[in-house]
């Protein structure tokens, strides 16, 4: 069924286009003045200015160290298996391999590579990690001149990751679990 829209005929004043002209003049002048003299521009000049990354942002995943500066990763390879785009590749130390930095850990990876071109920043690796050794951090602009350059190795990942915010193993997992028992869930 066709609905007839009631269109109001333009008044003589409106037909002259004058109100529209004055309105356009006012709006454009206001905006130009605001941008030019009051610094009301809405754009951000990106490489010089950067937006503040919100908490909980999922940036690039990096490996973290513990409070003693030791590698937290124990080469369990859970992250490698859970990674949807298969961006993580871990080389375990093997039978006669590398001893862990830490006293209470059995082993640590010989090599830990993340292909940042494959990574989709899903955060599964962080979620699955039993040692809290990998965290999605705030970097979002990874660039390189070749594909090889963007495969980050263990050394680079550890250097970029820094020291973990959660030092004590399992403590945060426990808190999370406790919080999920009360309703509504806060986390």
């Amino acid at each position: 069924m066709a609905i007839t829209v009631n269109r109001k005929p333009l008044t003589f004043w409106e037909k002259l286009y004058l109100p529209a002209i004055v309105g356009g003049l006012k709006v454009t002048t206001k905006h130009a003045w605001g941008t030019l003299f009051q610094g009301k521009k809405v754009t951000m000049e990106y490489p010089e200015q950067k937006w503040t990354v919100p908490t909980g942002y999922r940036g690039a995943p990096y490996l973290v160290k513990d409070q003693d500066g030791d590698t937290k990763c124990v080469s369990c390879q859970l992250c490698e298996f859970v990674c949807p785009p298969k961006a993580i590749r871990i080389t375990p130390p093997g039978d006669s391999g590398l001893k862990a930095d830490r006293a209470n850990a059995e082993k640590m990876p010989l090599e830990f590579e993340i292909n940042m071109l494959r990574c989709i920043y899903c955060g599964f690796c962080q979620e699955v990690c039993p040692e809290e050794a990998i965290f999605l951090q705030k970097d979002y602009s990874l660039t390189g001149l070749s594909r090889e350059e963007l495969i980050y190795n263990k050394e680079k990942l550890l250097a970029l990751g820094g020291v973990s915010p959660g030092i004590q193993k399992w403590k945060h997992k426990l808190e999370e679990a406790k919080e999920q028992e009360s309703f509504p869930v806060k986390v």
Partner: protein
Amino acid sequence: MNWNFIIFSLVKIAIVVGVVQGLVAYSVLAERKISAWIQDRVGPNRTAPPFAKYIPVLGPLLTRWGMFQPLADGLKFLFKEDFTPAGVKKIYFWLAPMVSIIPAMLVIAVIPFGSVMPLGSTLGTQKMVIADLNVGILYTFGLVSMGVYGIVLAGYAANSKYPFFGGIRSSAQMISYEISMGMSVIPVLLIVGNLNLSQIIGWQSGHGWLVMYAPLSFIIFMVASFAETNRTPFDLPEAETELVGGYHTEYSSMKFALFFLAEYSNMVSSSAMMVTLFFGGWTLPFWGLNLPAQSLVMGLVQVLVFLLKLCFFMVVFIWVRWMFPRFRYDQLMDLGWRRFLPLALANILITAIWLWIRS
């Protein structure tokens, strides 16, 4: 053979073409900057040659203002691939950009951009106009209406539907506005009694600017020149949002640049015509600037005055682009034929009667 005349004409042509092309290049920058400001943005502020950062204060400042942007744009146009799509009508495809740029450049020839330059006894006093034609206004109208052929040809030659629409719209638009534009100038001619642009300016220096005598003429002329130069709100032949790029959709590289130059040259010449016809050309009613210059400095100042007035109208052209939405095709026709034409005719009649009563 008058060598003095030939040499000075060539010099004037070189300078005027250079200045106009410079104006065109920098009006593109002005367009981008002013558009940016109106839209709460910053506009081009990055482009710079490698040496710019070594110039102390000026280098970064000019970069910030985007002063190097037109150079980069020009260079880019020169080095882009000049692509000819399959199925175009080759001859017309090549011809169209030329047909559109040539009239746009030729119009400037009759515009007096300054009074005179006294260059001493040996070189004589030079008039600051390339061709001081007695049929100045008719010449400009003749050439301006030539410009549409370039657009129509481009639309026809491209063998593609969007340019074709652009071409059709342009021809219809040109016909409807050319007449109102011509009619709107007749009161000016009635008042001054001369077609020569220099003489029109001369009359205005004695009697005051013509915009005070024929304001309605000015308004109609201004609106019509927006339509002539395909600027918003009458940019139907281009209409990026409807017709992709309108008549120049299929063009690339320097051929596209020529259309671009033609559009902005048309803006320059329209502004120059408005300044000359209604705003006293190179004159200012104080500091003795409304009389032909007696010294070189005064001559240069008058050229500067003309350029400033011209730039003002260029800014208006750019500014208006962000004020109004585009007219619909039928609204445009309606405005041209049913509003402005009768208004222009009435304006002629009223001016004639007024002059008859006064005489």
